[in-house]
């Protein structure tokens, strides 16, 4: 693989850009792999990457029904933060956030990580107390956050109206090293690095069955034929319930639609990410100038990647009070993604009832920020059979009542 660099740009400019290589190969599947990963989204590709980089396992296939990074990796609002209340969450999300810091250099691919700061607004007295508690918890966990007052909020984000009648801003939880990254580039960067290590990324290949033999997975049947494997890793987000059913087990997960929308591009006016959990909205400004807005989930199971219109209206209506300048903006486009939500709103990174099958799912509405940490931990789990980062996130926590209750800590905008 030729490295990307300023020198490479100059070299290609001199020869009419005729020398750029394909970023990854599109091979036909082999008969057998050591590890098959179902799902070439961020989490699946990151798992493959760290299997190769940290554990030396490169006989890996990543199988994707659609196209690479075309699911929730390409549909989220690109927010990266790690200000969680519970210790297991803080550990894995902070691992992910710290890996984002060096990801561009590590992958030799510009993921445009922008640690511009994430501010979670406290707009009720309950939220003030909740976020103060989170700030103290973060201090103990080694995650750098601070609780700031309304004047400081106004200073950081001048376009905000802090004394609205319905939702006054009473303070906020600020994580200065949180931010955003280019979501597609994260998937593309991992894919390029995986392909370079000799892994096969097989797109347009749907898994139609998981072949089992005596409590173990033997391989998968796909639209491109049967492929055998020693270990199987299911990383399919919204479709986890469906693939788990093919593998013969059931999950404590329901799939619902989560929506986002962007405005027309405007001049730079907000250089942080703002989350307002009371009103179910979160917003940042993209490098193109669009205001990127995320909302809440629908209240019913859905696989259509379309959500209910009233959620958009509710989100925008609520945000307008805090951001009055939004009221004159036209919205450019809107989309939905299918998120896999667990009972305690925390992910599942776990062994399964099948001996050599692993599952990574349940990231719900907050998966993008976790991609590198999730891949790092999952690769360790697949390679070694255990990982300190995944220990608390097993499927057995539901039976044993060891929930990682983040719905209280994170509210809706997870």
């Amino acid at each position, binding site marked *: 693989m030729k490295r990307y660099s300023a020198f490479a740009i100059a070299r290609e400019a001199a020869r009419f850009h005729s020398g750029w290589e394909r970023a990854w190969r599109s091979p036909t599947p082999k008969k057998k792999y050591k590890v098959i990963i179902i799902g070439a989204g961020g989490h699946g590709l990151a798992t493959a990457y760290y299997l190769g980089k940290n554990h030396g396992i490169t006989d890996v296939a990543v199988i994707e029904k659609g196209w690479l990074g075309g699911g929730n990796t390409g549909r989220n609002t690109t927010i990266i933060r790690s200000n969680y209340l519970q210790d297991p969450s803080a550990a894995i999300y902070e691992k992910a956030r710290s890996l984002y810091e060096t990801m561009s250099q590590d992958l030799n691919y510009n993921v445009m990580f922008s640690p511009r700061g994430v501010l979670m607004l406290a707009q009720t007295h309950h939220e003030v107390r909740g976020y103060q508690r989170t700030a103290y918890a973060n201090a103990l966990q080694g995650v750098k956050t601070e609780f700031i007052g309304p004047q400081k909020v106004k200073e950081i984000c001048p376009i905000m109206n802090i004394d609205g009648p319905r939702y006054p801003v009473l303070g906020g939880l600020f994580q200065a090293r949180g931010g955003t990254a280019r979501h597609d580039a994260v998937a593309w960067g991992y894919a390029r690095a995986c392909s370079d290590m000799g892994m096969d990324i097989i797109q347009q290949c749907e898994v139609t069955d998981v072949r089992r033999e005596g409590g173990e997975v033997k391989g998968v049947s796909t639209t491109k034929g049967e492929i055998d494997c020693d270990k199987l890793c299911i990383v399919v987000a919204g479709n986890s319930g469906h693939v788990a059913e093919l593998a013969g087990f059931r999950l404590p997960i329901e799939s619902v639609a989560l929506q986002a929308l962007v405005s027309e591009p405007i001049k730079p006016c907000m250089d942080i990410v703002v989350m307002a959990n009371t009103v179910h909205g979160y917003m940042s400004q993209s490098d193109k100038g669009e205001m990127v807005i995320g909302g809440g989930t629908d209240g019913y199971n859905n696989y259509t990647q379309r959500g209910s219109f009233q959620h958009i209206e509710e989100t925008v209506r609520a945000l307008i009070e805090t951001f009055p300048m939004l009221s004159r903006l036209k919205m450019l486009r809107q989309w939905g993604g299918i998120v896999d939500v667990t009972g305690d709103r925390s992910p599942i990174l776990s062994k399964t009832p099948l001996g050599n099958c692993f599952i990574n799912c349940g990231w719900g509405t907050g998966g993008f920020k976790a991609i590198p940490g999730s891949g790092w931990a999952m690769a360790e789990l697949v390679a070694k059979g255990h990982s300190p980062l995944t220990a608390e996130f097993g499927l057995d926590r*539901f039976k044993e009542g060891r929930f990682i209750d983040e719905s209280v800590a994170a509210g809706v905008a997870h």
Partner: protein
Amino acid sequence: MLILECPYCGVKAEETELHGGGQAHIKRETVGSDDDAFEHYLFTRANPRGVHLERWRHANGCGKWFHAARDTTTLEVFGTYPAQTFEPPKDIIDAITAKRPDWSFKNWQGAT
């Protein structure tokens, strides 16, 4: 926008008038049930890509719970029925199988 007819008051209610309540026909466990059964009852949920039976509440209307048969991949609604039943009535099953001939209640994820 999702529109469901409330089987009690006959109102064709749109989504903002309703509140989703998740999977229908969950078998309740009680004293004497083992841990696996309790885990299944409390946390495991049917999440089919296709026909789903679910609970809805006519929250901003008569306030009663009812059941709906819906397809999660097309958002098609097959019908609604009162909640005082262990399985969908015949007319609902007929409406589903008219369009999904392979579907049966006993093979629906939530029935097991």
